[in-house]
């Protein structure tokens, strides 16, 4: 389970922002702190990736992801947005309620792909997404995510 290995409890939070950019910045802050990558560099990479194609894959889920040479190990940030982000431009045009940012080292392509696949696989379950969105604390949401509930 790559998710359990790389997701830290303190990286799961309830987003304060209400727009795509605000939530991405909050998520970047979390990952920058965890990986000691320059925030600006990380945010630029995230925005460049989003400019190519939105990572909002529908059903309220977005998985922004970047690989950076500066990253020493994979890091994740999970932003819970109970009110939904309408401007995320998801493929089903529905508001996004969970944003999972994945940052991986450039040289660890396999781990990166496996992590992405696992996040998508886990959050494809509607009940789990519901549990996360309605969790009373980020800790509870974290436990749900890694299957410790």
């Amino acid at each position: 389970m790559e998710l359990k290995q790389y997701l830290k409890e303190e990286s799961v939070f309830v987003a304060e922002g209400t727009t795509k950019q605000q939530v991405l910045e909050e998520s970047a802050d979390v990952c920058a702190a965890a990986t000691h990558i320059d925030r600006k560099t990380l945010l630029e990479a995230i925005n460049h990736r989003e400019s190519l194609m939105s990572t909002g894959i529908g059903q309220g889920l977005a998985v922004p992801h970047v690989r950076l040479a500066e990253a020493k190990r994979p890091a994740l940030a999970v932003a819970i947005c109970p009110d939904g982000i309408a401007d995320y431009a998801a493929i089903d045009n529905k508001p996004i309620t969970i944003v999972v940012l994945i940052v991986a080292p450039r040289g660890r392509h396999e781990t990166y792909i496996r992590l992405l696949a696992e996040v998508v696989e886990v959050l494809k379950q509607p009940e789990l997404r519901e549990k996360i969105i309605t969790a009373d604390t980020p800790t509870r949401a974290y436990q749900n995510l890694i299957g410790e509930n």
Partner: protein
Amino acid sequence: MATIPLGVIETGHLSILLLLGFALFGGSMGARLFQKMRIPQVVGYIAIGLLIGESGFKLIASADVENFRQFNYFALGIIGFLVGGELKGAIFKKYGKQFMAILLGEGLGAFLLVGISTGLFLYFLIDNPTIALAGGIVFGAIASATDPASTIDVLWEYRSKGVLTTGLVAIVALDDALAMTLYGLGTAAAGMLMGGSDSFAVAIGKVCIELFGAIGVGAAAGLILNFIIRHLHQPDKTLTVAIGSILIVIAASVIWEMDVILATMTMGVVLINIAPRRSKDLFKIVRSFSPPIYVIFFVLVGARLGIGSMPGWMWGIVGLYVFFRTLGKMVGTYVGAKITKAPAVIQKYAGMGLFAQGGVAVGLSIMAGQHLGDYEVTGGMMLGDMIIFGVTATTLIVQILGPPMVKLAIRLAGESGMNITREDLLKSYSVADIMVADPATLSEGDSFHKIMQTLSTTDAMTYPVVDENKTLLGIITVEGLKTSLGQQSLSQLLVAYDLMQSPPDTASPDMPLETAMTLMREQNLEYLTVTSPSQDGDGKQLEGLLEYRRVERKLDHELLRRQEAASDCEQSMLLKAAIQKHRKNTGLTSEK
């Protein structure tokens, strides 16, 4: 470790080392210079020899050159062995009759024309029919020899392959034996005319021993060498044993007064015909060992040629000899080829390829000098000296004219460059010649679906990811995609940007292909992107893509194409000859 004090080294040793150094270094420089002028390298070696030897600055004492007589045998022995390796039985089955007719035509043509012309010249000069006849016979006999070394050196230098090349190799290899026969009988006849002791029957006996003895020794050595190399598997050991065997055969031939080239050539013929596969590698390794030996040999040929003190009338003999030898070889070849209906390229061009005259002729003239040294021609000039002078001067002229004529013959026949190896081919290309100049590319925003579509419609294994200015951003390889292919859930989430990897080393278009291939092998890479600095100077602009397996495939195709072209050339010649024969047999006239 023991060291030798400088004062202990004798000057004689030092001068031999210097001679070798001059010969190898200077010879290579000369060859390079002449190659740039598109003249065969062998002329360059000889020119350097002329410069530093008897006819030039006399940097090398003639005694030092004489000390190398044994080395010359070694060089001729190696040449004979390698020439033997080219003579497969199948060639003789196919062309044996034609080659023998051409051999007799060109050898006897040169013998008769040179013999008659120089004999008549001497008769009018000195009014002594006996000396004139003796001189004419010996000059004629020597004129029949063609130098296999320089002829074959040109064929190898220009990677020649085809029916003409095969014919030239066989003829120059065998006409040595013809020259020896004519010389043996000629000097015996000349000796008898001059009142010598040997009878003609004794002379024939000597010639038979010289030739058949050489064949016997060579054949036995070939069988023994084959038996030994069957049990040796390391190339270095095989080479050592082979060189050792060649040296023994050379020594035996010299001691028993037999033909060195014929002996080692027979050794090569036996080996290639009884164990073609095993001996193929052996010939390859001996050939790779031979270039320094050739260079020294040819430089010494040049250094030995001394014509400074030749009397003026000798130039008349030289002129007649060169002219009538050329004419005799051209006409004799044509007649021999025409009578036996040899392929047209042989009829037209084989004569041009048989002009070179080298070590064999010089060696025979020195022997003639010993045999006929006691008879005066005129004004203190002895018959033996006249022959040495004449052959030396004609060798100088013909050795400079001969190799370019061989080159012209194979070029006109379209056989030049047909025997190219994979390594030669690799060396001849730059990256730009072989790279895919417009490879299928991806943009960083291309979806997973688009990537798969591109993969399915192209056969590359590597896809550069570029921006709108063709600046290289990354690479997607089929191998690298394997991880993502199993993750169906990600197909809507991934774009090329997520999947691309940083390109490893890149190559420039003007990089030699050989360097690029070495780089890929050393770094275990399947591909190299070919780039040039982008206009803004920050990135690399994509120029093309070099994929290892594609390069290998292209080289294979090109090699096959050239081999087939050489083979087609040979086949079409045979076909033409067969059609002509059929037409004649059935009474049909040829088409105009």
